[in-house]
């Protein structure tokens, strides 16, 4: 009975969670195929940026960051099925909080350590002071 009621609403529920039994196999495989092709293209792009010297050197880290964020987005949407459906609102909000914490942790560490590095005496001066 519940299978029947779930069947009529593939548009309103997060895919992969409920309402899935009526979703056709071909459709399900198609989503994963799109995901794996996009992810593979982005991976190949990342590796070729580093190993072919197509891109101006100092721009490589920025380019890699952009490609990585794009690929993580592809994974979230096509593999983890993070959508805008009502059932997914809590998942998206939790992810946003997680991203905030990760950004604070990594960004903050880099910022603080870089600041310390700049305020520290160069190594040879330190050695001379210790003599």
């Amino acid at each position: 009975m519940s299978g029947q009621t779930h069947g009529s609403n593939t548009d309103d529920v997060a895919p992969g969670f409920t309402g899935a039994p009526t979703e056709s196999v071909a459709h399900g495989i198609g989503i994963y195929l799109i995901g794996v092709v996009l992810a593979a293209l982005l991976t190949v792009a990342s590796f070729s940026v580093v190993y072919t010297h197509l891109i101006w050197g100092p721009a490589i880290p920025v380019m890699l960051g952009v490609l990585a964020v794009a690929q993580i987005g592809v994974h979230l949407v096509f593999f983890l099925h993070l959508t805008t459906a009502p059932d997914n609102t809590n998942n998206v909000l939790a992810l946003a909080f997680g991203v905030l914490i990760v950004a604070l942790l990594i960004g903050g560490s880099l910022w603080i350590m870089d600041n310390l590095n700049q305020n520290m005496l160069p190594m040879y001066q330190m050695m001379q002071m210790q003599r």
Partner: protein
Amino acid sequence: MSITQALPRAPGGNFDPYRVGRSSGGGGGGRYDATGHGEGGPASKDVIVGYGFWIFILSDIIMFSAFFAAHAVLQTATAGGPSGHDLFRPSSIAIETACLLVSSFTCGLSAVAARVRSQVWTQIWLLATGLLGLAFVLLESRDFAGMVAAGAGPQRSAFLSSFFAVVGLHGLHVSAGLLWLGTMMAQLLAKGFRPNVQRRLLCFNLFWHALDIIWVALFTIVYLIGEGR
């Protein structure tokens, strides 16, 4: 569809507007049984279990971010020892990346097969996922063994300590995932497509895809950016 059809019914057949929930009996109604819509009631157990496991994955990612932060700070602290450019072999990293990406894909195919309750195909795709994951772990441990044998073990420099910590942590997660995968295949074989087994499969899928996401961050920050340092 008339309004009485869309509303839940009491066991006697009488219309019961106060019954909560949609998972037992008649459930919610029509197209409005998504969370917070119309007669839907509380979210289904699938949604709640998925949410809980998603919280765990996010906390795991936050733990990883601390390791990533340490590595990002220490990436240039080679103490006169070998740098990433000397140690990393692009072909090996590319093969490992391909293994994990394809295993993520086959894991997704197993989820599609589990949704239509095909025991054979679910087992086949889970097995493929496990073999690819195993290939990844073996390749990575071969790389590690080669580095240690060449005198570039975790005790050589701060850069290598943080490298082995973050990459090894991911490798440990993949190994644990492989053990979990084995138990899931056994459970599926012994118990069939029970609702609780299907929810565990859902959690395993989330875990495996999350490991691939962490690997994307890992090969970008540790290997590709490390290559230029």
